[in-house]
């Protein structure tokens, strides 16, 4: 299981990476923007995408839409971890096909719960 972590703040990428390691996910790769994430996704091999919303180049919501629109990537599980909390945003993400939406600041328990939920749904399909 290879997980791509996308956030423009290096500290947040590091925190998520550490939390994933605690949950047993050791194979992670990082990108600092939706823009730099795309070539990584297109190169293949990524099984799970965790992304922030507010990034200077390509925003997380647009990255999500791009992934869903790409035949090769459309089924990828996507988890948003973001400080964006407006209702319209959450609805937009859900309608764009996000699999989970975590708001910052978050707890390790929440991350674990949401990831487990996503995998449950995938395995049930």
């Amino acid at each position, binding site marked *: 299981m290879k997980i791509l972590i996308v*956030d423009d*703040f290096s*500290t*947040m990428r*590091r*925190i998520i990476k*550490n*939390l994933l390691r*605690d949950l047993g996910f050791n194979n992670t790769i990082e990108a600092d923007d939706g823009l730099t994430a795309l070539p990584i996704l297109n190169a293949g091999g990524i099984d799970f995408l965790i992304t922030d919303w*507010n990034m200077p180049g390509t925003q997380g919501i647009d990255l999500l839409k791009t992934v869903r629109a790409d035949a090769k990537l459309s089924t990828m599980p996507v988890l948003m971890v973001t*400080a964006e909390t407006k209702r319209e945003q959450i609805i937009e993400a859900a309608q764009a096909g996000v699999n989970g939406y975590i708001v*910052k*600041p*978050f*707890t*390790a328990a929440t991350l674990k719960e949401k990831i487990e939920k996503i995998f449950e749904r995938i395995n049930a399909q």
Partner: protein
Amino acid sequence: MEVFNKAEQLEAARALVNAIEQDDDARIKTELMVLTNARESDLFQQIGKLTRELHEALNDFKIDARLIDLTHKDMPDTRDRLNYVIQTTEEAAHKTLGYIDKTLPLANELKQTAAKFIESWQRFRNREMSAAEFRELSREIEVYLPGVNTRADEIHSNLSEMTLAQGFQDLTGQVLRQVIGLVEEVETNLVKLVKIAGQPQQPETQTTDPLKAEGPQINAKNKPNVVNGQDEVDDLLSSLGF
């Protein structure tokens, strides 16, 4: 008002000189008036032009609703944002320090209990321990080991919480970026204002009091009178004989 070009002005001047030479009072008066009118019309032209420019600049400013927004909404907003940064960083620091306070005793306990066992084990190895004492030691170890497990788990959990607490940097960083954006906007508008005010002011060279408290230095490397780190402080003091 008629506009006089240079040739016409020269002609009028010559006519005036002529009239003066001929002592023709009536003509002097007339020619003077012609020249004065030319001058006034010129002045009027200049003033008219300036007034139009000022009017347009002011209009640009009025149309710039951003300026009004900046004053009423964004500046107070910015104060809130910066206070949020102070608050968030304070909370994160205290949270982390709190977990450290909880974790240090755990590490100490492990160390102390281990020290006790090292002593006992040494006596056992030196055959200084009776069977009964050894049975007691075994019991103590049996109690101790699960305790190590629990302590280690607690330490791990505390460290994880400390990791999460560092999330403040991302949140405050996002807010600070917004503030930077706003400061840039205010800067642009101020530059516009200064241009309208017309006079290119020389920036005031303020003599800063070197003893005035400034808080942490942001660009320490580029300032010759600022030390970088404790080592340079110690070097400076020892070079002065302290």
